[in-house]
């Protein structure tokens, strides 16, 4: 996956998290709706932010499969 795509997913998921929080505080969304949005958006935010920082784009490796 390209770095730009990874960055886009990280930013979009952060925006969804912020939107869920704002909507809950403003009374637009109830707890359940905000919780669902947060549950969907929080994992990609954590993972793709990390990948955006450090994902390698070079040759992949073979795991150690024993002697």
């Amino acid at each position, binding site marked *: 996956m390209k770095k730009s795509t990874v960055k886009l997913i990280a930013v979009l998921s952060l925006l969804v998290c912020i939107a869920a929080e704002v909507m809950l505080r403003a009374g637009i969304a109830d*707890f359940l709706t905000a919780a669902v949005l*947060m*549950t969907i958006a929080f994992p990609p935010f954590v993972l793709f932010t*990390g*990948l955006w920082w450090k994902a390698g784009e*070079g040759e*992949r490796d*073979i*795991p150690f*499969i024993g002697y």
Partner: protein
Amino acid sequence: MIEYLILATILGLLFLGIHRKVIARVQGRPGPPIWQEILHTLKFSFKKTWIPKTGSELLFTGIVLVAIGIWTAALFVVLAGQSILLLFGIYMVHKMVEHGVGLSPGSPYSKFGGVRSVISASSEIPLFGAVAMIYFFTGSLMISDLIAFQAANGPLLLIVPPAALGLYVVILSKMPYGPFSIVQGKEIVSGYKTEHFGVWRAALDVGEGLKTFVLLFAFVVIFFGQLPILLTFIIMLIVLVSLSFVCATTPLLSPYDCVTVQILIIVFMLVFGVVLGVLL
């Protein structure tokens, strides 16, 4: 609500650090600082990351998202006072996460961890027993109803101690370095997580922190009721330290012994439930 999520993640990782520290002290070692798991997570998120050549890309990536997602959902289930059955379901999905993380990279070590996760499904039997006993005594599985029940009748811990024992064993089976931690046994390197390095591991650690917090938090809410937040954290810490003592003083059981011990616990719970049922 995002503040709860961040707080739960940090506290969960801190609890895991305290867990390691207590185990080390009991075993006469200095041990790492208590914030070590937080540092680990940060450290892994700065490591170069890729997917192994032998891995299934979709499963390798997707299962990490599921690992964080299910415990995020579990936190909101407890905060919203929803049904314990939802927690039960999430716990089942966590088994699939262990299995998926283990099988996705194509490494024999992680595969063994994933296969052992299936064997350790016996830890769900005490959970099932605990849920059944709670329903038998309170007539509800909604956490909000359990809080109301305990406000009127006192802590469930004193009313159905075997149910508390059942959930305690469930949490113990999910704690690292415990007698039932066969999915992460050192003889298979890091078990199912062996090939999830770098950012993958950091994300799995975030899920692990959330899981630790949610399980301890759910235990306190279900068996002690709604307490002031500081007191809740103190009881969570006490439960955690007791788990650490068990982990420090018991060897890692073989997979078959794990099943035997967990079945013995459910037999004890059944006998207690039948005896109380007859007496009441």
